[in-house]
């Protein structure tokens, strides 16, 4: 009589071995497509950077509208001049900081992964600091 007790275990092992080979094949393909993948990654990063630039420009436009408007509100509501001036200065600084931190010359960005990683890390670090400072100051 045939012993089938190990059949399902063997089938399971065969499938898992097949998965192992498939993963190895995936990694081989990635290696073979090195140039394609790097260019693809870099274009994705540049696309993201351009999206960040669009949001910076939106903030600048809103700021250019908000600042004189706030001055007018301060005049109409008879707010203390130093309060109005302080808010306008903070808004302006925030806009300038946003531009300096997040604007990257995308078209001249190198295809160097290290350079890209460094720029992305710097952006994130400064953005976090900006948020930590700007939020309590503006809401306070």
């Amino acid at each position, binding site marked *: 009589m045939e012993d089938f007790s190990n059949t399902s275990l063997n089938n399971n092992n065969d499938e898992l071995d097949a998965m*192992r080979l498939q993963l190895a094949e995936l990694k081989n393909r990635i290696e073979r497509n090195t140039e394609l993948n790097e260019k693809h990654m870099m274009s994705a990063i540049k696309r993201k950077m351009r999206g960040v630039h669009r949001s910076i420009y939106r903030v600048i436009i809103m700021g250019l509208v908000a600042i004189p408007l706030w001055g007018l509100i301060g005049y109409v509501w008879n707010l203390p001049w130093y309060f109005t001036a302080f808010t306008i200065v903070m808004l302006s600084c925030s806009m300038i900081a946003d531009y300096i931190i997040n604007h990257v010359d995308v078209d001249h960005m190198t295809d160097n992964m290290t350079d890209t990683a460094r720029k992305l890390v710097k952006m994130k670090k400064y953005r976090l600091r900006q948020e930590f400072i700007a939020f309590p100051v503006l809401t306070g």
Partner: protein
Amino acid sequence: MNNQEQQFTQIVREHKSTIYSVCYMFSKDQDEVDDLFQEVLIKLWQGFDKFEGRSSLRTWVYKVSLNTCISIDRKKKSRPTQTILEGVDLFDDSDTDNRQLDMLHGRITQLPPFDRAIVLLWLESMSYDEIGAIVGISPKNVSVRLFRIKEQLKKMSTPAKS
């Protein structure tokens, strides 16, 4: 480029397939793979000068990649997505090969993120000790979890009986 940058570039080039395959298994579409890859790149660069060489580079790259993907997976909200291999000319190969990779991707992505990490490491023929060191559990716990994962994968491949 200074020495540290050269080393980092070299590490990324050598382990790019590892990083990419991990990101691939934690994503549902091409955009997500790209986003995850960028995040892993950032984390690797941030942690590079703190890497003391106590573990192998491969282990370190895996640890950072998996931890990044798992934490992002926990934060992200579900959204309608396109499967990664539909109409994407990522690999210029036969449809049969793509279908097999699609199946592999389909099975692994059905697992919870933590189990996905364990099974990926196991499929790379790592020992229980290595897997435990990367994901932060004991080797015994790894073996218990792997047993359950294998059972789950087995159920996925067995057609349901009517």
